[in-house]
């Protein structure tokens, strides 16, 4: 009996010493980082910007801390020859221990991504046990990455939350941006059959104005940050920006569309009908019988008609079939445009290489090394779209048709 207890005690004690990283730190001794940004300055040094949460100002109302008096976040900037050095320099500016556990946004500047690429800088993020691999990554478009963190935002008190929320909502409601996290970026960087796509974010207005608390004390903000297109990477370097329908095409082929609108021209009138896709499924398949694989993108979309600006007779099933045909044509056109432009960019962001690998691994091995430059741009891609109109909202025919009679 006694021996067992001693043994148990020893085993338990030993586990204490072999355990991994643990460290006691009270919540109020931490500087909670909500977002990080990486820029590069003229001297070629990395500039790391960290956005720290001021808990009392965020929680508001509690213990007399008003959100009106001081900003919800504080931003510090530090420079260094490497990302980690910049980080160490940042610690000398903050009284508390920098804590990355809740940092869920990493902003990379457009300039850095274009010129140097993102491959070199991500290791520091991936290696740190505190930084989450689920942190969202965005590229600052037309602005410095650091400036994106400095601007205060309305509704969402923490700017990082606003960025994440906006990307999330845009992806769900419009399909024009994509939530990409650190894990995804690293995976696509290392994968031969798929290239990286990262959402862009831009700052509208004057950054000096955006830093001030007065900016969010008005109904219309002078300076805002908003979701702005998709950054297309080739081997870790930013090569192109897609906007609007072009970026939606990427999201669509990647089968991440949850809801989006397609606007249709009809009978010579422009933008006469809006169709909302509510469910869709996109499948990509490869035919590798020939030397050059043939890829087929099959889209099946279901949705409602949500806006009609003419006297289309929606009670007529043939009319509906007709609209469906045109929708299919429109979607097909948009997707094909995206594919063509991407082929010109020579960057397989759709993961077509992966599809080929799955259908014919042997052939893929041969093509792997020249895929982006030789094979991908010359691929024949068929787009087949099926669109279905399920409902037409609360009305069938528009009141416009009643007015004519």
């Amino acid at each position, binding site marked *: 009996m006694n021996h067992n207890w001693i043994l148990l005690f020893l085993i338990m004690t030993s586990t204490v010493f072999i355990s991994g990283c*643990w*460290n006691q730190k*009270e*919540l109020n001794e*931490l500087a909670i980082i909500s977002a990080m940004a990486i820029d590069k300055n003229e001297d070629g040094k990395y500039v790391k910007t960290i956005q720290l949460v001021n808990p009392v100002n965020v*929680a508001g109302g509690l213990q007399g*801390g008003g959100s009106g008096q001081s900003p919800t976040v504080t931003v510090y900037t530090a420079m260094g020859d490497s990302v980690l050095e910049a980080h160490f320099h940042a610690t000398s500016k903050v009284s508390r221990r920098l804590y990355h*556990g*809740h940092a869920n946004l990493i902003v990379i500047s457009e300039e850095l991504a274009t010129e140097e690429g993102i491959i070199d800088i991500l290791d520091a993020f991936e290696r740190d046990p505190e930084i989450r691999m689920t942190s969202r990554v965005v590229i600052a478009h037309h602005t410095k990455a650091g400036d994106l963190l400095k601007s205060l935002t309305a509704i969402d008190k923490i700017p990082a939350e606003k960025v994440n929320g906006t990307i999330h909502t845009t992806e769900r409601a419009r399909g024009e941006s994509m939530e990409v996290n650190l894990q995804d970026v690293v995976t696509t960087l290392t994968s031969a059959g798929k290239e990286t796509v990262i959402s862009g974010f831009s700052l509208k207005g004057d950054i000096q104005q955006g830093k001030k608390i007065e900016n969010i004390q008005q109904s219309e903000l002078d300076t805002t940050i908003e979701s702005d297109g998709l950054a297309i990477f080739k081997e870790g370097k930013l090569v192109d920006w897609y906007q609007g329908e072009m970026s939606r095409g990427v999201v669509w082929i990647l089968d991440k569309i949850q809801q989006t609108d397609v606007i249709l021209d009809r009978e010579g009138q422009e933008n006469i009908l809006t169709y909302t896709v509510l469910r869709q499924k996109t499948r990509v398949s490869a035919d590798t019988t020939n030397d050059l694989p043939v890829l087929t993108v099959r889209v099946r979309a279901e949705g409602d008609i949500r806006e009609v600006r003419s006297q289309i007779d929606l009670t007529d099933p043939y009319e509906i079939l007709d609209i469906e045909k045109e929708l299919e044509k429109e979607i097909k056109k948009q997707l094909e445009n995206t594919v063509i432009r991407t082929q010109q960019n020579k960057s397989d962001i759709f993961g077509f290489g992966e599809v080929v690998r799955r259908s014919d691994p042997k052939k893929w091995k041969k093509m792997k090394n020249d895929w982006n430059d030789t094979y991908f741009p010359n691929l024949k891609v068929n787009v087949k779209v099926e669109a279905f109109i399920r409902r037409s909202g609360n009305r069938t025919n528009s009141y416009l048709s009643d007015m004519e009679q």
Partner: protein
Amino acid sequence: MFSFLKRKNQKNDRKIQEINNQNQSNNRPPNLIESSLSKNLEVIKQKTGNSSDIIIRPLKIGHNSQIKIAILYVKGMVDNQSVQDFVIDSIMNNQNLSEKLIPQEVLEILIEDVVAVGGIKVVSDWEKLLTALMSGETITLIDGISKGVCASTQGGQRRSVQESTTDVSIRGSKEAFNESIETNTAMVRRIINNTDLWVESINIGKITKTEVSIMYINGIAKNEIIEEVRKRLKGIDIDGILESGYIEQLIEDQTNTTFPTIYHSERPDTVAGNLLEGKIAIFVNGTPFVLLVPALFIDFFQSAEDYYERFDIATAIRFLRTVIFFISLVGPAIYIAATTFHQEMIPTELAIIIAAQRESVPFPAFIEALIMEITFEILREAGIRMPKAMGSTISIVGALVIGQAAIQAGIVSPAMVIVVSLTAIASFATPSYAVAISARLVRFIFMVSAATFGFYGIILVFIMLIVHLCSLRSFGVPYMSPLAPFIREEAGDTIFRRPIWAYKKRPRLISGQNRVSQGEDQKPQPPRTRIMKNTTNVEKGEPNES
């Protein structure tokens, strides 16, 4: 210093021994009752120190009242009505006793004809006579006879059968045991009307001579366990038994544990239910708490009501209780671990809110939790001991101190108050107070380990706790059964409660050979025929208008 204390103690011990010796030498009566009444009365007076509550009523009966007898009883211990009507009155008014008699005849007449009380016995040695007297029987001594007649006239003021205060249920019998052992055993017998319900009694306690009964259902209870209970009870050699807690502490399997290995209940239906499972009940005179052995860990999470409600509801409630027990065990520990080690596990918004609340708190989370827990324990203890009239004061002071002032003063954070109060409420929601106290103690161990090693520490202590629980036995039965060792057919009555009709067998480790508890096909079913079917009479018959 220590040796001085020791010497003093030794001196005291010696003194006590001397007193005992004196008492024994002076008061030791001859073993047998003498024939002279006056001498006997003298002995009783001397033996009881001429206690004023012992009533000696001398009488003279027989022809010319030449035979002296004496009636003795203890004031308050007897039922005055029956002493008056069935002993004193009967003796004085009996025709047979006024004739010419010799003492031997008086004794016979007394026993056979006169004393109109159910339990009557004749004793000849002092030991038995005095015990009978002290337990509320009425003694009749006759001059010239070296025997005493004991009539059971126990009575006097006892608390009536009332509703249980510690084991309340909404559905089910409302009556609870009281302090009288006769009432208590009778209450169980009223539920189990079976000759196989056996009761054995012994007196425990050198001085108190408390009556202790064990009750079991012959044929269901395991003989080995009954024998073990008997052996352990007989082994008790102690001055006094004041409550069943004394017995519990003297017969439990293992003492170095905070977990109770003997169940106790105030409810006759709970005791009856456990007896039917093959358990053994130990009744102690003077307390409403009846012990039940062997006790399993899961017993402490079950209430009588579980079996009265339908199984789905009972199962849901048992799940809730499991959660409650976990909260009361590790509630503050998880909070401490999450806020001081694993901040990444808290959702961002919540982490920020807690950080904001903690901004002005000067203590680490552990100290903060300790302050709150101890404050709460103080309030709880004060609330129990305080006169009822002061109860409202406690609640006001408690609510203000804990709820308002501590937060406003910035000593604790509001989140901590929520955690501690949730834990406190959870510890009250555990059905058994005994296991709730254990959880209360273990909670502090969890808090310390959480403060030193975070969740890792919580898991370590948790493993130790489980190992400890699995090592416990209650009268030889593994404490964690039927979970560990896992017994599949009985696991349905743990955190689940299967339907009554699925209880085909009694617990294997507790009950004896006879394990079948119900017939086949006890599951109720709708009738085969349609009761609502229209009968021809109703269809054709005209309404009876006459």
